[in-house]
């Protein structure tokens, strides 16, 4: 009974949304005077950044990104607070036993490459697809591989939280520097360089590198916390 009710409700809602969105139309320009044209123009002209999405995420709407980083930070904090236990079991393992020697040897060689891939993604965030979040996620995944493969691989909690804090402070601090040297928060105060060079885009690559470190540290923290969560019921 309840299921039928829910299906009816959702069918109604779906019809409602579907008529709305099909009315909007797919693949055609919907509006005339949007901000999108300004973004596309200014990205190349005044920021000298190739990737418009990066420019929007970090500069035009950089405030959103600051909020987003904060959301992740809070998620880590809330996760720790929800799963908090007194840490008397210090020597607890992330996994119960090591993987076979093929996986361990393989991940040993792959780990630096994954980290390098992550670094590549966030250093080139303003030139190619990708950026701080993606690079950070990739680095965290590299740590996940090591944590999974080895029985006694551990990541220092203190270093993680220091990296996280410093990266966060860099982001917010660059914003405040913009307020001091420029006129507004997060304003670009560095020379913008030449389009499609690594050193271009002013503060954008710096912020993305900070975001990359921060996201990497945060997600590694998430993985580490959740891997060490041994349910009392399940051994």
């Amino acid at each position: 009974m309840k299921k039928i009710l829910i299906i009816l409700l959702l069918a109604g809602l779906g019809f409602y949304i579907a008529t709305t969105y099909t009315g909007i139309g797919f693949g055609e320009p919907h509006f005339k005077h949007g901000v999108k044209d300004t973004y596309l123009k200014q990205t190349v002209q005044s920021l000298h950044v190739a990737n418009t999405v990066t420019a929007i995420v970090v500069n035009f709407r950089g405030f959103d990104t600051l909020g987003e980083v904060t959301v992740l930070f809070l998620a880590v904090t809330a996760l720790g607070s929800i799963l908090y236990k007194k840490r008397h079991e210090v020597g607890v393992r992330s996994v119960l036993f090591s993987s076979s020697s093929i996986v361990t040897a393989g991940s040993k060689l792959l780990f630096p490459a994954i980290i390098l891939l992550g670094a590549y993604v966030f250093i080139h965030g303003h030139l190619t697809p990708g950026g701080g979040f993606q690079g950070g996620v990739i680095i965290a995944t590299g740590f996940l591989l090591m944590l999974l493969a080895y029985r006694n691989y551990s990541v220092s909690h203190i270093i993680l939280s220091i990296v996280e804090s410093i990266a966060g402070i860099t982001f917010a601090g660059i914003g405040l520097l913009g307020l001091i040297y420029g006129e507004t928060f997060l304003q670009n105060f560095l020379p913008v360089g030449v389009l499609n060079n690594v050193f271009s885009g002013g503060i954008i690559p710096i912020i993305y590198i900070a975001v990359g470190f921060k996201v990497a540290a945060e997600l590694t923290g998430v993985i580490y916390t959740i891997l060490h969560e041994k349910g009392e019921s399940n051994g």
Partner: protein
Amino acid sequence: MTTIIYIALILMAFGMLLSFIRFVKGPNTADRTVALDTLTTIGTAALVLLGYMFHRYIYVDVALIYAVLGFIGVIVIARYLEGAL
């Protein structure tokens, strides 16, 4: 040239379809994970080919990342099945 790309894409789509059927049918977790692994590999190849279709070099980065990370996803499930987690 376009014909060849079309044929390739359609063949890959059929490959994905068959793996997906295996995913739905597969009697146990490992079978389903094999299907996921195969889907990921075919997907990686498809991403490169589509990048060629769109003539954008930068699109290939996505395939690169899928090639690396799909593997870790499989390792996660394998480690769970081993009872190591």
